[in-house]
């Protein structure tokens, strides 16, 4: 049984994430999505990944993948500095609350999203939010790009060391640019 990195997040249940080890799989998933959404959390502002701020990866993924962005908590500020204007800002539980309504209009007003990608939300809170969506939002899939496995996500990266994590994020970004 694959344990999440943090024991507080150990799954007690039957429905666990599909672990994606391969960046192309991840990118493929995102490309396949009709209305993907990238949710960027505050850890992106505080975490360093191999010398550069995690927020930059978030910004680059958004740009490369042309993904609409929700900035939670106070991430908006940092994103603006990086030249990315988030399509909206919400508290993380607010965006999850919207997402669980099938008929929500979505951040673009074009309808609810079918794939929601999370990066930079503290693991315990993120996993609880993912649980909400797992149980109450059958109409969408969730994907986490964080360093730690999220059992409640539909798709999650495994627990990773920084270098491996960076590699995956980089190749996700590249796989967008390549094929565009």
């Amino acid at each position, binding site marked *: 049984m694959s344990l999440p990195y943090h024991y507080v997040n150990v799954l007690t249940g039957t*429905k666990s994430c599909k672990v994606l080890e391969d960046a192309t799989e991840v990118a493929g998933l995102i490309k396949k999505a009709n209305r993907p959404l990238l949710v960027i959390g505050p850890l992106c502002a505080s975490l360093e990944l191999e010398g550069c701020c995690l927020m930059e990866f978030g910004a680059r993924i958004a740009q490369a993948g042309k993904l609409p962005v929700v900035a939670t908590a106070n991430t908006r500020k940092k994103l*603006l500095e990086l030249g990315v204007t988030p399509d909206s800002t919400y508290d993380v539980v607010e965006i999850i*609350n919207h997402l669980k309504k099938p008929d929500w209009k979505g951040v673009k007003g074009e309808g609810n999203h079918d794939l929601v990608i999370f990066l930079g939300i*503290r693991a315990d*809170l993120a996993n609880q939010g993912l649980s909400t969506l797992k149980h109450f939002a*059958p109409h969408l899939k969730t994907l986490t790009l964080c360093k730690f496995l999220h059992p409640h996500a539909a798709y999650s990266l495994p627990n990773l060391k920084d270098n491996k994590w960076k590699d995956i994020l980089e190749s996700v970004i590249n796989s967008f640019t390549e094929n565009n």
Partner: protein
Amino acid sequence: MSKKGRENKEINEIIRSDDNWEPVGYTPMPQITDLRNWDFRLMETYKPFYAPFCDLCCFCTFGKCDLTGNKKGACGIDIASQQARFVLVACCMGTAAHAAHGRHLIDFLIDKYGEDYKIDLGQQVDIEAPIIRTVMGLKPQTLGDLRKAIEYVERGLVHAVSSTHMGQEGSSQDFESKSLHMGMLDHVALEASDLAQIVGFKFPTSVSDTPLVDLGWGSVDKSKPTITCVGHNAAAATVLIDYLRNNDLYDKVEVTGICCTAHDIARYSERGKIIGPLSKQLFFLKTGLADVIMTDEQCVRSDIPQLAREVGSALIATSDKICYGLPDVSKKSIDEIVRMIIDEGKQVLILDINKAGEVAARVAVEIAPKRIKEILNKELAQELTKECRNCAMCNRVCPNLLDVGTAIAETGKGNFELLSLLFDQCVGCGKCEEICPRNIPIIKVMQAGASWDTYKVRTGRGPVHDVEIRKVGAPIVLGTIPGIVAFVGCSNFPQDIEEIAVMAEEFAKRKFIVALSGCAAMAAGFKKDAEGKTIYEKYPPDFDAGGVLNVGSCVANAHIVGAAIKVANIFAKLPIRANFEVIADYILNRVGACGVAWGAYSQKAAAIGTGCNRWGIPVVLGPHASKYRRLYLSDKGEGDWSVMDGRERQIVDTQEPSPEHLAMVIENKERAMVTITKLCIRKNDTAQGRQLKLYHYISLHRNYIGGLPDDLQNFVRNEKDIPIFYKKDVMEYLKGVGWQPKPALTLPTLIETYDSDVPLDAVIK
């Protein structure tokens, strides 16, 4: 539910309905379903939001039942109802903890003073029990009356616990209604408990500038015999202090406390010292500075007997809630017990707290000289940690997701910076130490990273004064005081313990009213400015714009809700007697108050918070609270925000999401400050008041999130609401989003928007 004749008769006797201080309202002593329609109305706007902590139910022997994918349990329950059921269980535990606490205090004091002992809170407080008056319809005059309040809670609790049994309630909404009811009863218990100890222990009341007392482990004089009381029920501690006083020992002994017992020790005697909140319990007890540990009840670590042994502290348990399997020596003579502890090294249970207090004092004085008390120095800390290979097992078990490993590894290299930071973020569970493959005593090592300063916290002051309410009632309701922010609850903080002080000061500077209680009130004292001053020293202790006040221990939370009720009663002159819906409706629509339980961990906090929600007070919670499983969130701008205009007697679609949520979790303090400000917005704000609130909302948003809030259009009713300072930008923004002025409103209320006995006239004064 229409009450039977017998029932009415009983209630009239209990609340002395012929006492004509006010006419008896619509819901005297409501039962579990009596306010159900109010709850359902609230939930129309603020829908339960569930984050299941587990996919399964394991409550009965048909289980485990898998509730994923809309599957039902063997009993037919679904995942949402199971979450709501679990929340109700938590609210029952919390309410029971406070009710049993109150029962113990009140029985103890009635033994001492008799049940006719008067409740007198001094000249500043006439409305002695706003919650009990509003919920029950009783104006309590004696300890015996307070016991009636506890009995009312006891009776109500049984029905709620019953509902959690398998094959009972089947609707998540009804589970929520029962939780809200428990929350309200919890507040009755809180108020009864704190009033009892204020009058019984003669705690400060009707004064705002209560003494500043010492805070922190650094304040303990190691050269003196030290007794540390852990828990929430100060009865035994007061007996201890009396004994010391009567025997001229008080200046020779340190009486210290952890958790709320500490607050109440300080309220009983300003020489008492407050070690800190729950998060420092394990840390402090492991220092061995306590010669005697005296436990009472609630938030006391389960492994204290083992901890006490490790460091050679004597242990006296004093509560039927926490017996630790220890021998019950309550009937033995004090001499005999003292000998058992000292000669036989026994840990004991003494349920007669009159004995416990004296035993604690005598044991401490005897054993202290024989004990060596030394704090771990940096050299030793480095020695103890140098074996660390940063395997990160500690990180994996840390409930606060902290990087313990690196801090310990660095300590091993003689760098203590990270260790100090770690200590400030540590919630004090001790799992890291337990899991460490190299057996590094991490919690002990933190002694070398902790600050050993002495801090200051203002003693709990109890109720907000009626005179204070007379002064601030209007500005609060008009909005010209931008809000009341109450920092309450436990110390399961997501980050630094200093965050409470930082947030509190931000609001104090902005002339909000800042009230604190419990562990949060202690945490707020753990930060000094350049001049070495804590917020308690920098800001006035008044319930007024820019004031920072500590109401007291957890049970004193009642006074914060009580203040909101008093605004309705004193300023708006609404009768409160047995008039819950009218008062809650008033608070929801007009009193800009917001509770902040940033480190909430306990079932008590769940009950308190849920109670606030029923009163119409929004609560902001820290990230850990997502594990409570349930929030109350609105659909924000997309929801239906129609209310009744009381004067026009017609439904008005205000298009204004205020207050925006009732119970929500926020990721970090920066965002929290912005949201808290927003949650102080009320439909009743005058243009002037709304300008002020929006000014703070915008300015905080600019500081912490950047630019203008993208939901500003929701809160500007017409141009007059726009803060002058930001007028240009805001107008531009509103134009951009196609903002239109919103319908005007004279008297916002939910009354007559749902099925209730309360007529519209009841809210019009």
